[in-house]
């Protein structure tokens, strides 16, 4: 009885499990080329028409632009806030450190719908709901924790004596940060930025509360679309979004290794 033999059942189970997990995605891929005008299975006929219509759908294109702009803005701002916070939390001893740490990670533990409502209550009086600014602020609440986490992870695993070495070699604290610390934690920072972008790009629940006519994100447009229509255009859009996500995941994997980031 070799381990090879025992490996067989495991492999079968794992393969089935993956198929089960990937089945919806494969289904979407198949349906997006289906000639029928309602989403159904099995497909009949082959067509590119849903992709062509997608390219002409003004709402989706606008939604895509809004989501992209908001996503990039969120990613940059999340880094700007998250990286210093991570440094403070991992490198400095101060009185309310635990409290601060809890504060910055807490949005991850609150249901999105609660958070969305809360943000609406806060943002409405400020009159920034329905604007890019409002969306960005709302998304920051859920993305900063990820940046804090990935950056903290890099900070904790990097060799701290490198920073001390830089100091003894004549680097001021700021130069030590830019020349040594930042390059060494770059994978975590980059991963945090990409995750922030993806989450923002994907976010629907919180956005529903704060979008307006001028600034409606793609997920919200999709939401509205499927309320009234059921043609495979939405499947074609899903395929495009999946492709974009995969691209980003490849970037993270190359930069840092997925395991490290998702741990």
């Amino acid at each position: 009885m070799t381990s090879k033999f025992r490996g067989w059942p495991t492999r079968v189970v794992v393969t089935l499990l993956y198929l089960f997990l990937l089945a919806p995605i494969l289904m979407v891929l198949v349906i997006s080329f289906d000639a029928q005008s309602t989403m159904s299975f099995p497909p009949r006929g082959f067509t590119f028409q849903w992709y062509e219509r997608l390219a002409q759908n003004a709402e989706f294109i606008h939604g895509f632009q809004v989501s992209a702009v908001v996503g990039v803005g969120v990613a940059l701002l999340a880094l700007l806030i998250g990286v210093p916070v991570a440094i403070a939390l991992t490198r400095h001893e101060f009185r309310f450190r635990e409290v601060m740490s809890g504060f910055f990670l807490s949005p991850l533990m609150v249901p999105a719908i609660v958070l969305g409502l809360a943000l609406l209550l806060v943002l409405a009086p400020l009159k920034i709901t329905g604007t890019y600014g409002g969306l960005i602020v709302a998304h920051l609440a859920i993305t900063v924790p990820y940046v804090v986490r990935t950056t903290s992870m890099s900070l904790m695993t990097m060799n701290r004596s490198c920073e001390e070495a830089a100091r003894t070699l004549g680097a001021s604290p700021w130069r030590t940060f830019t020349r040594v610390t930042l390059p060494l934690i770059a994978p975590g920072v980059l991963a945090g930025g990409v995750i922030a972008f993806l989450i923002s790009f994907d976010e629907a629940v919180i956005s529903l509360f704060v979008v307006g006519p001028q600034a409606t994100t793609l997920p919200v447009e999709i939401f509205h679309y499927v309320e009234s229509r059921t043609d495979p255009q939405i499947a074609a859009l899903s395929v495009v979004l999946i492709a974009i996500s995969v691209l980003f995941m490849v970037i993270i994997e190359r930069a840092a290794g997925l395991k490290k980031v998702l741990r």
Partner: protein
Amino acid sequence: MSFLQLDDIVKKYPGAERPSVADFTLGIDQGEFVSLLGPSGCGKTTTLRMIAGLVEATSGRIHLDGKELTRTPVHQRGMGLVFQNYALFPHLNVARNVAFGLEMRRTSKAEAKRRVEEALDLVRLGHLSGRRIKQLSGGQQQRVALARALVIEPAVLLLDEPLSNLDAKLRDTMREEIRSIQRKLGITTVFVTHDQDEALAVSDRIVVMSEGVIEQVGTPEQIYEHPANRFVANFIGRANLFDAQITHTAGGVAELDVAGLGQMRAVDDQGAKGPATVLVRPHRMQVSKAAADDAHGTVETVVYVGDSIEYGVRVGDNTVSVQSVAGAAERLERGTTVRLSWQTEDALVLT
């Protein structure tokens, strides 16, 4: 005041019960090679880091070349520190690592290039300047770290157990190399180690520490031949320590009543009185066969180690180590009853 002068340095880490370094006063001359030696946790690294400025002293003063340095920030001290784990920058190649300190000083490109080459040649790594750090062996990384610290022409070179990650053979060659580079450059050096052989082999002076305080400062010979106390005698080399009662002292020689051995003589610098400890190194002890009623003890262990034989002789509750040159005397078997003796000049009274 010496070139590098530490006065009454104390370091108490926040929350610690007692100071990690206490009342540390030491002067180091220009060009001197001084080792800090002591068991793990005795405060060697802490002391070194206070000199570098990475740890702030709780109290006390540090002067370099007459100028007070105690509150100078790390990056303005100009000390060259080599870390135990080397702490090379993994994102820079060998040459860029070495050039780092010069870049921080805004040295001109041409001069930096020349000095980096010089430094790498000094540690015999000129041919690897383009390598990534990951592609270097431990010994090579060690040399890069040394070159990186030396290229900025530091006032003092600080080495924190630089050899402890190398295998035994490489350790010996590297320590000779460090010493010869140090002589060549005439650079003042503080070397931290817990390895007594290393300290004895390379140092001009050794500072023996225990539990945060200095036990003795002296040349390797002084430390080995005239340890200041039981701790130093035990820590440096192997030692037999006998409890004794001084009966008479004259002309630097004490007559003693040694427990288990009877009347003996030993060198006594201090003119001590009453109870004392006598130190005799194992290779200075003599052992000879004796009739049971005349013997001090019994041979308990015999270990043959090539050029010498090591005996463990049971005297009362204690075991005395004796090292004799193999072949010089008849070999004693286990269980032999023996007498122990020593030359007066080979025994030292400790206080």
